């Protein structure tokens, strides 16, 4: 018998034996399908398990990210060297423009201060901000969110705005004890109330899983030019007013916003500890604790944490 099998191999016959599939395999498939259904209906148990498990694997993922950092840096540097010439020319042009703007800004700042003094304007209180590390990036089909390595223990709460570089990146949608999930501007469930241009025309920035979210509900006949500034309106209370989101861009028959923030998450993001009003009937663990962030802000004013920094939110 063994001779026949050996002969069979020599002729290059079947090299892979048929494999049986155990009942366990089918059980695990049903289990996975069950988990998926629970996730779809956002069952509290599923959310709790996922949040706790993300906190559990965060140190492992963070360690892997640290190991990958030198490679990432090499790739980043190589990409920069390829574009250094054009980047230099762009920066020279920008510098010339900015020097003119700087002179204008200093004049306007002095005038603004004078008018504020005359009107006895009460300035906005600075809001506490904290810089957090990204421990898991965006991958797969459900990718328009990232996980950061800080959570409720560090004062992060549902709805707080998150920045990358100079612009708005997204907001916190789920805060575990040691990790939080940040929904990006580009996610198709993201909606942000904004104002467009100098006339502050109200509109809504709607994510559609692309790098340039759509601008909808812009009043017909609004006189806004391409490149106009898009800032948060603060209408929903989720975001403070005046945070720069990006610039207007027309794309065939769709109006889009070019985000100022790169939607490819870097290593770090900044979370503004802005107090967000809790919607009625919201889960307690997902919502901010009213009054607590204000108390924390007051405490931070007298004894700021080493990792936090002050951040003005005025436009």
């Amino acid at each position: 018998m063994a001779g026949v099998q050996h002969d069979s191999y020599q002729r290059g016959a079947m090299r892979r034996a048929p494999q049986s599939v155990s009942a366990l395999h089918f059980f695990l498939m049903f289990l996975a399908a069950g988990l998926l259904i629970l996730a779809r209906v956002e069952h509290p148990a599923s959310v709790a398990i996922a949040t706790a498990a993300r906190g559990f694997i965060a140190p492992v993922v963070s360690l892997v990210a640290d190991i990958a950092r030198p490679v990432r840096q090499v790739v980043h540097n190589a990409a920069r060297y390829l574009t250094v010439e054009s980047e230099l020319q762009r920066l020279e042009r920008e510098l010339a423009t900015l020097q003119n703007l700087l002179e204008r800004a200093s004049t306007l700042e002095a005038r603004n201060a004078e008018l504020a003094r005359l009107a006895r304007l009460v300035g906005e209180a600075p809001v506490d901000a904290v810089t957090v590390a990204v421990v898991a990036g965006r991958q797969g089909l459900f990718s328009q969110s990232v996980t950061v390595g800080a959570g409720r223990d560090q004062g992060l709460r549902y709805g707080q705005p998150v920045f990358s570089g100079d612009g708005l990146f997204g907001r916190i949608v789920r805060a575990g004890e040691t990790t939080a999930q940040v929904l990006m501007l580009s996610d198709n469930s993201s909606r942000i109330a904004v104002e467009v241009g100098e006339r502050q025309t109200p509109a809504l920035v709607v994510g559609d899983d692309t790098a340039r979210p759509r601008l909808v509900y812009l009043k017909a006949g609004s006189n806004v030019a391409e490149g106009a500034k898009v800032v948060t309106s603060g209408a929903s209370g989720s975001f403070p007013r005046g945070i720069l989101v990006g610039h207007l861009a027309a794309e065939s028959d769709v109006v889009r916003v070019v985000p100022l923030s790169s939607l490819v998450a870097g290593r770090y993001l900044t979370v503004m500890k802005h107090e967000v009003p809790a919607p009625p009937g919201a889960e307690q663990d997902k919502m901010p604790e009213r009054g607590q962030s204000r108390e924390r802000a007051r405490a931070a004013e007298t004894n700021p944490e080493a990792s936090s920094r002050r951040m003005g939110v005025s436009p």
Partner: protein
Amino acid sequence: MKFVFAIVPSVIILLVALIAVAPWGAPDGARFVMPLLPYMAAHLFLMRGVGVVPSPVLFGVGVFMDLATNGPLGFWALIYLGAALVVRHLPGEMVRGVMGRLGGLGAMVLVLIVFQIALASLYKFEWVDWQGVIAGTSIAGVPVLLLDLLWRPGRRERQLNVTNRGAEHARRFG
């Protein structure tokens, strides 16, 4: 030796999963490729019949990918297990020689594409970026293709093919 034979594929799949979730600074399109890499490693072992790829490992790695990619729990686990189910039922003739295994790889890529689009579209109640899925899954299959072409069967694999021990192990641990 049996223990090593049983555990090596699982360890390799876990290592590939850790590599796949690391932020390498890859272009945006890579997000369609990376979560498939652990299954691609599993596919090599499944097709060759070398070693054992236990279903709980596929399930665990799938859940790990769900957690690390902020996806819904169960998505990648179901994809991995579904694809493994199809591959384990491929007829023996299909994986005979290089051309047969290329056919197996093509079938697996097709199954993964269909599973991903169908499941994600059902989950979201809207069509997902199917072009990204097709491109990403096809690209993820390239390393398997290259490894399969370069893989020379070792003494152990030849013995297994001769005595059909792979089937025994699969029945016992699979």
